[in-house]
């Protein structure tokens, strides 16, 4: 695809309008600080971070964490779609293997290990978008620190603890179990 490059107008080629526009901002902050005693940081992006944490706006894309449902189940079923879709390859899932886990009820599958390398994560939100089980969400955490690289690889335990409980109105697995149970009761062959 060839994108035609627009020619700058004479006015734009002067660069003076752009310079004055930029200088206006600098001047405004200078005047504000000098006469109105207001710090530029407060009215622009940063705030008094880190003393006063920044209040995150609605829809902000922070760190991705795993969530549990109301019954304390890990919602993730290890379908590995997030691992597949993740552009920087930050997610690594270890599937459970063929053994049947009696503790998971009617959920056949859950990850054995789930790791996100927060140093690689670019907070694009593809994992949340692609997740068919609504098990991973980008939360509001933006300040992720660690002493070492290993510390920045969050494992399943940590991700679940940080993610907390998701108030899920669908309750897929509970609904499935109830439906199956109802059919057991409604069995024309069964002798009462």
């Amino acid at each position, binding site marked *: 695809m060839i994108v035609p490059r627009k020619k700058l107008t004479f006015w734009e080629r002067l660069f003076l309008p752009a310079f004055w526009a930029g200088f206006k901002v600098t001047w405004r902050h200078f005047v504000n600080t000098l006469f109105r005693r207001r710090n530029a940081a407060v009215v622009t992006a940063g705030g008094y971070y880190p003393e006063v944490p920044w209040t995150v706006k609605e829809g902000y894309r922070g760190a991705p964490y795993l969530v549990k449902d109301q019954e304390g189940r890990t919602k993730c079923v290890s379908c590995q779609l997030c691992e597949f879709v993740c552009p920087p390859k930050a997610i690594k899932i270890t599937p459970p293997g063929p053994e049947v886990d009696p503790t998971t009820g009617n959920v056949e599958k859950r990850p054995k290990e789930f790791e996100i390398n927060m140093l690689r994560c670019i907070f694009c939100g593809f994992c949340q978008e692609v997740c068919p089980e609504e098990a991973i969400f980008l939360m509001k955490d933006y300040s992720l620190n660690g002493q070492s690289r290993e510390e920045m690889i969050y494992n399943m335990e940590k991700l679940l603890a940080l993610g907390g409980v998701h108030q899920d109105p669908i309750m897929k697995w509970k609904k499935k179990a109830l439906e199956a149970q109802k*059919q057991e009761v409604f069995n024309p062959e069964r002798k009462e």
Partner: protein
Amino acid sequence: MPEAKPDQSATPPPATVEKIKIKVDGREVEVPRLMPDWTGKLVPTTMLQACKLAGVEVPHYCYHPLLPVAGNCRMCLVEFGVPMIGPDRKPLLNDKGEPIIQRSTLPYEPGTPRGAIACATPISPGMEIYPSSPATKQMRESVLEFLLANHPLDCPICDQAGECKLQEYALDHGRAESAFRETKVHKPKQVDLGPRIMLDDERCILCTRCIRFTRDIAGDDALGIINRGGYNTLTAYPGRQFDNNYTLNTVDICPVGALTSKDFRFKMRVWFLKETKSICTSCGTGCNIIISSRENVIYRYTPRENMAVNKCWMCDAGRLNYKWIGRPDRLREVLGPGGQKSDWSKVIPEISGRLRAAPAGSVAMVISARQTVEELYLLRVLANKLGAITDAVPRVGQPDYLLVHADKNPNSNGVRLMGLCGDEMGANMRRMAEGIAAGAIRTLIVIGEDVTRCGLGPELLAKLETLVVSDILPNETTRRAHYVLPGCAHAEKRGSFISAKGRWQRFWKAVEPPGQARPEMEWLGELAHNLAGENSFASVEALFNHLSREVPALGGVRWEQLGDTGVDVKI
């Protein structure tokens, strides 16, 4: 998936078969009147086969080119028309002199198109098939809606996701929303059908491919469907298990994720797997396989279609014979005398020197019929130069009537064609033992075999001056070796095998070998170069083409001629 490719299964029979003209989507095509069915017998061509020949794919679940036709999934319903016949049994013609085509309609409702299942309806001259007409599309949509009425949307946890025909056809031919508002029927999940098969009844679409496979191909009538209506369930015969040696093929041919392999279940998603064309090494049949691996770990073997060798099938034993490749106790270091860690660059000149100094006739070689033809050729060059006595170790097992061969070596014919064993494989071992005991044989080269198990006991090995052993896993012989050279499994190198029936087939590298292990061809090539002045070959292809010319029985076949399915060699 070993689903037969259209061009393979729909290969037109010999020209002697009469051809008839039909129309597919309004395009006139000439197709043979008779085509081979799953047994190879010539039977009237079906609409599905005719469409395949015309280059139009008709979706299907229960139809499989290598299984008897059942015609129960209804997915291949197509609208069609036949020439209208007059009272004189001649086609009626319109004003332009063309035959009038009567579209199939419901008998009690002449305005409504009526489909026919393409997999079981034979074609007739002048017939017109409409695989992309609006009525056909509507039929497909309705069939899919019906199949999905009770099918759970388990895609995130289902192993078939990524190779599921239901998923694929629902995308291509289905409708976005289902009209069914009722609760889905819940059937048993995680049903243990046999030692290697787990059944999820909810996902079963009752195509009966598994039943027909096990009854008609494997000859073990173990499966059937019980109950009627919404509670139809697939089950094994009461009191029996589905446990023949071919059960895992049903997992491949299951178009949905109802039958799952207990071995592969939940281990990896199929879209992550890298597929490598290879050959099974469990017996002399040489079944064509696909090795699925990810990040240097092999996850499964699946059969690859080769109508000349294994068709679409493969035995369970061969399929599960991959776990040893990733074993943690693999030999991964080159060891010199006294068990010291060494290096290829140090060890190979040392061995060359020792072999050069060895008097003629004082060297023996025990090789494995699991080595590739290329490696065997280099060994033959070495053996001829050193005047060595050579032999391979025979392995015999129980054959069966379908695929399993009694010869458990994948390349016995390679050894024979290279002249590396006597008329009877293993007959030279006694001579070798006598030679070592008498002190005539001072050097022994062992490739991929544990000789302590076949006549050369530890006390004999202790008498040797030099014992060079190359192997994959540690054993008694590697523990007593002066030089241990870590080798590669077939999945870790390229090469070719000649099967028990004389099929010469090549295979490709799927994973990297561990540690210092490297393909035997490399160091054998160096030895052959050092000792016999043999050209050192940079690639498998070059060596292959060279040996194919050198060995008369192989007839100068070139590497690329083998293709994916191999060539027959006279044995």
